[in-house]
């Protein structure tokens, strides 16, 4: 009995100490973690629609349709929309966040989720680094700081400027060997985008 009491006491003390330490660490890191989360969200929105930053957003939920209206200035009419398009590709549902203006022209697109075949369909999120070992060494030796260039996934970058109403797989360069995944992205954007435009007008 005495032993049992000792076990309970020891475990209790160990847990108490652990809880106290973790509470301390959590209080210190929480504001930082939340700031990081907000930054990540803002970044995703900004990539889809640069105008959305600092402007009023309004979430619309209409049955299955769910999207954000972006208001610029104090207008009553939204200047654009941000939505998430989903469609089954080759082996997974591909989710794309898309921003478009009121006329349907795409301001940016970014794949949020996909689980396509590595090396084929998964290339829809591929980013080609332009930095080589040679250029990096050169840069290191010359000590001249070159401005960081932002590299974006090349597949979704080609959507910029296209119109959701008539964007088609034939207008863009599909990923080699992954026609089905490429098509799914394009079609999901066209379907969802047109649906929202129709609902708004």
């Amino acid at each position: 009995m005495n032993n049992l009491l000792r076990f309970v006491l020891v475990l209790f003390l160990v847990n108490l100490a652990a809880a106290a330490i973790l509470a301390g660490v959590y209080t210190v890191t929480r504001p930082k973690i939340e700031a990081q989360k907000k930054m990540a969200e803002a970044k995703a929105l900004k990539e889809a629609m640069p105008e959305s930053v600092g402007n009023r957003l309004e979430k619309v939920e209409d049955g299955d349709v769910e999207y954000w209206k972006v208001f610029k200035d104090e207008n009553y009419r939204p200047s654009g929309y941000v939505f998430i398009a989903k469609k089954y590709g080759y082996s997974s549902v591909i989710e794309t966040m898309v921003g478009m203006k009121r006329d349907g022209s795409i301001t940016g697109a970014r794949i949020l989720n996909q689980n396509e075949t590595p090396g084929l369909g998964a290339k829809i999120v591929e980013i080609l680094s332009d930095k080589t070992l040679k250029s990096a060494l050169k840069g290191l030796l010359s000590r001249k700081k070159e401005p960081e260039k932002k590299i974006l996934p090349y597949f979704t970058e080609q959507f910029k400027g296209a119109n959701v109403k008539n964007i088609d797989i034939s207008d863009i360069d599909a990923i080699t060997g992954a026609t089905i995944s490429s098509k799914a992205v394009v079609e999901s954007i066209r379907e969802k985008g047109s649906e929202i435009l129709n609902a708004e007008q």
Partner: protein
Amino acid sequence: MPSNNLTVTPSPHIKSPLSAKKIMYLVILSLLPAGIAGIYIFGLCSLKVMLISIISCVISEAVFLKLRNRDPKAILDGSAILTGLLLAYNMPPEIPFWIPIVGGVVSIVLGKQIFGGLGHNIFNPALVGRVFLQISWPVYMTTWKNPKWAIDAVSSATPLAKEGARGFSYLDLFLGNHGGSIGEVCILALIIGALFLIFTKIISFHIPASFIGTVMVLAWIFGGEGFFRGDFIFHLLTGGLVLGAFFMATDYVTCPLTRKGKIIFGIGCGVLTVLIRLRGSYPEGVSYAILFMNAVVPLIDRYTKTRVYGVSKK
């Protein structure tokens, strides 16, 4: 009793006049019609791939045998040539020349020699090479070329790709008049070779029959919209099913020894093939299915061991 683990069937054991070497060359012979068909359909580039692949396999085998101080004469047993040939049959005809080279090295070194050489390999070496290439360079391994007489010279989607061109007639698919891997397209030629092997009793019909049968039944049930509406003939005639079932699943070293075991092995291959074809993220499941079942062969052998006559069950 160590011998008990090796002898699966009870005596008497009849010694066959066929040696391993003879069998290898007979299998190569039976594969020739499919190769000739591949060259006829896609042109001389098919021959090039086959030669590079075979040479790569033979050289890696020779180098490895030398490194391990084994008798270098073993390269003449035909197994390296057979591996190289099977590997080439799994590739599209217009593939960069270095892919069959890498494939040959991987097949022989990782698929066979690392386990101890012929007879000790757990997995079919040609399939190890093929899967390595398929995962590593999927774009090259799935860029098919149309037959040389087709007007459309641009690569087209393989018929097995999920939304693939269904415009082929069964006759076209049977004769190989469509894009695909060198040795997989012409079903007619493959069947000629397979019949030869079965009639000379080099392979038994158990694995191919249960493998293909399972694929067809499951494709019929689950392959279409709703149940029992799948196009099972399409599943039979496309991809590497015929080549895999007759020539790769039946590899002596990597398949079970008893009849019952062979049937279990074939059914397992079939189930996995359909599962990967319909639900997986790669278009073709035959090679993955066979490799997977290869890994289970020791287990199958253990549980299908024939009871010795006159010995009680327990």
